[in-house]
């Protein structure tokens, strides 16, 4: 099966680009931060500096594991789903589920090894840049020298590999558990209902977020910047909760503009409404990164803003710990943005490419390329608005309790500028990825596209 894995990797290089990119970026980031552990172990580093460096490394390390796991699972399951027919074919000629699992695992392992190997050099440079940043902001003494050693290498390789293989196992179990006829159908049919597991998972994450929000507003009230420990993660759990409920959200919320779209949206509006209703699961795949991106970025940035304002209001200067928390917050946001962008672009490119047959059939029925693009634009708009809406709600799980805990008011003083910038990024990414792919799909003659 390994030889089959290698051959399919070579043959379908583009399908794996996103997974590979997620692993590579993850490994680079983990190595950069883990090298802070090696640096802390160097001679003549003061205890305070050691603490700063170790916190930095462990917090970001944990984050990377979650993000890489999420991004690789999402990209990999798309890559595998696009090959559902191929998988069904392999099964129908006698491949056992175990053999297919080994094939998917093999493919992923090869990708992970390559990603880790390529990550070493940028990881070294990233670690050096990170230390320079810490020295510049006076969080670490200037005489500390950067060390790239066993911790960076083992954590970088270990976490990336564990996350990649974990994702592959998850993906493979879902794909190969189906029977032959089922998986042949899976390539075309859409589940009519959301799975119970997904529903329960979404509710559990939302309850967890609500619980943490209450803890932040009560237990952490008056605890100063420490309230970030509970507040920071709240928007993440809420975002994941909403992301899991994606299919329901798409169908219910995106269904609201159905009547005006049907009435005034012309043929494109009509098709958009039908697609949102019938392809809720597919659209939920793209909704997930938008919610995560908006929710986590908005929550964390406003939380940091509230904290900085509160420190300034008390007439104080930030201490070392507060400074390094700020740095960490910005790094985490940077990572989330990067990974969410990869996931978003990958999901949209994959699903839009997958739809070229549908576009072809629409064109043969009499749709001009402009009408198809109008439909894609409307769908992206519906997707962006829904994602941004629930991302904003998720971010409130962090912002409101933290503002209350820190300043005794509920609403932060910060203006809407940051939020609008985040919305703009989400909208531009969604539109650009969908439209660029749709334009490329429209270049294929309609009759060829319909035959796909």
């Amino acid at each position, binding site marked *: 099966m390994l030889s089959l894995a290698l051959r399919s990797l070579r043959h379908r290089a583009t399908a794996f680009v996103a997974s590979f990119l997620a692993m590579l970026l993850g490994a680079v980031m983990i190595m950069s931060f883990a090298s802070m552990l090696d640096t802390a172990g160097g001679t003549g580093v003061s205890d305070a500096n050691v603490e700063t460096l170790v916190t930095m490394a462990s917090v970001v390390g944990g984050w990377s594991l979650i993000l890489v796991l999420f991004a690789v699972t999402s990209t990999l399951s798309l890559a595998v789903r696009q090959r559902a027919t191929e998988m069904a074919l392999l099964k129908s000629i006698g491949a056992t589920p175990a053999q297919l699992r080994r094939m998917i695992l093999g493919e992923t392992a090869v990708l992970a090894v390559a990603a880790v190997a390529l990550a070493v050099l940028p990881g070294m440079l990233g670690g050096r840049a990170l230390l320079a940043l810490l020295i510049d902001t006076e969080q670490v003494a200037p005489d500390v020298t950067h060390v790239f050693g066993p911790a960076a290498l083992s954590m970088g390789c270990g976490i990336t590999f564990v996350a990649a293989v974990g994702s592959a196992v998850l993906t493979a179990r879902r794909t190969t558990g189906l029977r032959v006829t089922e998986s042949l159908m899976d390539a*075309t*049919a859409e589940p009519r209902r959301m799975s119970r597991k997904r529903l329960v998972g979404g509710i559990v994450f939302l309850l967890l977020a609500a619980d943490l929000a209450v803890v932040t507003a009560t237990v952490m009230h008056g605890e100063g910047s420490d309230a970030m420990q509970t507040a920071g993660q709240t928007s993440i759990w809420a975002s994941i909760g909403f992301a899991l409920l994606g299919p329901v959200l798409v169908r219910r919320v995106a269904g609201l503009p159905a009547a005006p779209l049907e009435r005034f949206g*012309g*043929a494109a509006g*009509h*098709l958009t409404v*039908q*697609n949102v*209703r*019938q*392809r809720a699961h597919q659209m939920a795949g793209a909704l997930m990164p938008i919610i995560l991106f908006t929710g986590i970025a908005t929550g964390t940035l406003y939380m940091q803003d509230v904290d900085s304002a509160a420190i300034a209001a008390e007439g104080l200067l930030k201490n070392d710990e507060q400074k390094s928390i700020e740095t960490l917050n910005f790094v985490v946001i940077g990572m989330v943005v990067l990974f969410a962008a990869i996931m978003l672009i990958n999901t949209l490119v994959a699903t839009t490419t997958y739809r070229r047959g*549908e576009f*072809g*059939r*629409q*064109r*043969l*029925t*009499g*749709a*001009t*390329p*402009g*009408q198809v693009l109008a439909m894609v634009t409307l769908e992206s708009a519906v997707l962006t608005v829904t994602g941004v809406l629930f991302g904003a709600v998720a971010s409130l799980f962090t912002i409101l309790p933290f503002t209350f805990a820190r300043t005794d008011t509920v609403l932060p003083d910060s203006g809407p500028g940051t939020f609008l910038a985040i919305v703009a990024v989400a909208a531009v990414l969604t539109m650009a990825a969908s439209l660029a792919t749709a334009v490329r799909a*429209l270049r294929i*003659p*309609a*009759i060829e596209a*319909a*035959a796909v």
Partner: protein
Amino acid sequence: MTQRIKPQGEALRLVSVRKVYGTEDNPVTALANVSLSLSAGTFTAVMGPSGSGKSTLLQCAAGLDRPTEGRVYVDGTEMTGGSEAELTKFRRKRIGFVFQQFNLLPTLTVLQNVLLPLKLAGRRANPDAAVDILRRVGLGDRLGHRPAELSGGQQQRVAIARALVTSPKLIFGDEPTGALDTRSAREVLTLLQETVRFYGRTVVLVTHDPVAASYADSVLFLADGHLVGHLADPTAEAVAERLTRLGDEVAARRAMSGV
């Protein structure tokens, strides 16, 4: 369905249509100088061995592809090769399609699929007319179903209703019975015959099935991009015999020229 419409004039005319694929160094001529004229209200089958240029002929005549040289007139109007949007607008006024793979949209119901061409053309979509057509193809009780819930034959009948709904002069069928069992194929072919007899449409059917071709008024034979023959009032046996001979001739010619 009692009154027959007597259509007048010419539905389709091809003048010296050539289509060349491939690169400049290695051109492949799919259609070499094809001219033909079909009068309105006729049912014509186009046949030929594989690689004879049947599909290319259909695509060029239907405005799905642009000929390298030559002119195409549909219902007296020349198809001028502009952008895809212009060609689409030209097509959706005059031409209906029925494909082997039905090409229905899975997210739309039967009725929505049939209404879609009208919506796309920005015309007022009158559900009554569409329901009427669906009833005539025998699907009056399936309006709210989705294509996946129908049999192949039923899906193809939806496709025929969709092709009829804009009242096009010309309907092209590209192997419309290729994916159907014998019984459904017979129903679909009878329906196509009726669209000619009772609605006065002009149907062009590309097929390699002699039985399907025998439903047409006449058969055109194509080989290596040339029109090589014509058969009026065809029977399946006559078509099959002609086709076999044609295949042998082509094979012999190709062997001679060392292709």
